[in-house]
């Protein structure tokens, strides 16, 4: 798969039996449909987080294309306060997070702090942010 932003081939990271497509050049992350749920576990908080995702195509951020279907993705507002703008495929192939965005979402969701995958994810991407 190619990074939808910088077009470099993406590396696949496997941790705890979940695969994440990761661009080592721009640190973006692609999650296939359902992977975010699988990653965070199926809890009410996750559901709340997911339902808080609102399509907002008025945002003036550059539109990027879904790496699977190559169609322009929706801009999504995640969270109520200080919303983060992420990209979501129109036909639900998955979600795109620019560098650091996934981590922000995870922190925002104040999810189970002891969630192993969450900890793993966090420490993976905090290291990258330094």
């Amino acid at each position, binding site marked *: 798969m190619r990074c939808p932003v910088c077009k470099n081939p993406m*590396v696949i990271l496997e941790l705890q039996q979940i*695969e994440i497509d990761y661009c080592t050049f721009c*640190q973006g992350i692609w999650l296939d449909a359902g992977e975010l749920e699988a990653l965070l576990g199926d809890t009410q908080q996750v559901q709340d987080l997911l339902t808080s995702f609102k399509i907002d195509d008025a945002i003036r951020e550059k539109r990027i294309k879904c790496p699977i279907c190559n169609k322009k993705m929706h801009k999504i507002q995640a969270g109520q306060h200080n919303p983060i703008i992420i990209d979501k495929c129109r036909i639900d192939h998955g979600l795109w997070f620019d560098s650091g965005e996934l981590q922000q979402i995870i922190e925002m969701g104040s999810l189970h702090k002891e969630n192993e995958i969450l900890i793993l994810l966090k420490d993976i991407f905090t290291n990258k942010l330094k």
Partner: protein
Amino acid sequence: MWELIRANRRKSLVLFFIMGMFLVLLGYLIGQAFKPQGGGITGVVIAIFVWFILNMISMFSGSKIMLTVSNAKEITPDVHPRLYNIVEEMRMAANLPKTPKVYIINTEAPNAFATGRTPDDAAIAVTAGLLAKLNRDELQGVVAHETSHILNRDIRFMTYAGIMLGTIVLISELYLRTLFFSSSARYRSDSKGGGQGQLIMMVLAIVMAILAPIAAQLLYFAISRKREYLADASAVRLTRYPEGLAAALEKISGSTQDIETANKVTAPMYIVNPLKKKGMKIADLTSTHPPISERIRILRSMAGGANFTSYQQAWSTVTGSPSHIIPRSGLADNESLGFRPPASGEDIEADMKQSRRDLGNLMMAVNQYTFIDCPCGVKLKVPPDYKSLQVECPRCGRIHKVSD
């Protein structure tokens, strides 16, 4: 077994020769329509020549073309040991001189086919979806069915018949197109001194050019349908476990996914027609494969053991037809082959997530990804076109070399 192969071939040969007659007749009529004096013979010669050339091409690289068109990639035993074991097992059961090459097609739709020239030079291709969805017994059933196609010499014969069909279609199309594009000029020259005979020939040639491809296709389908039943019967003989193939057919036909790379020419090769969704409504006459439900019912009602006689009996019971699907020589085979029990233990269906990941890894291995196990616990899968020679583990910052 040899007797059976020969009988199988004899039966198909009749249909094959009728198909050939269509080709010759088509060549004759078109030649005659172009040139009333001696054109017919030239037409026949050209038609046979075209068929011959296409056959030559397919003889030397037919299977390669088929595999390339289907986007199949060859694998080594270490990529998928289970599949390779099964192919080797079936090769021994069928007593083939050489292990067929094993190919994987990167599509989620479950299916499989065999191709090649001779048993020495054969290939079995399975889709990634097949590997993900079937357990060992079912996979063995499918591989046994494909091995039977190789053993029964179906692969080469079907190629010949397929090429003949292709030639008939090609010549008909060419003729009709030439006619269409040059029609105005033709009428003018004809009006000067064109005989009525030529006009009649032209009409006959047009009718033939329209009908021959359809008729040839029906014959081609008739040949391939018969061979599917025989391959099922032989597969049971090889595995001694009809339920494996029956369950596999059920799973394959239950899938709603189509194979993107399959087309009219390659469709009859597959164990289950990969274009089924598009041609569902057309009568059984035009189907390249017998109805799956019927094949499954026959397999499940085999009561007399894993031999041909038992299959023939089950076939007659299910279809209610008195005709022989297994050549008589095969029915002399009363060897009592008992069924074997299903495999157990490790072969309990893996959960869908695990098999999906296995499938993903398999396709990555086939597509030359590099797998790196970082000591920190993260597994990195690097695509072959990755631009840097090194990759940094995002978790611990270790630098790994990508290529070896």
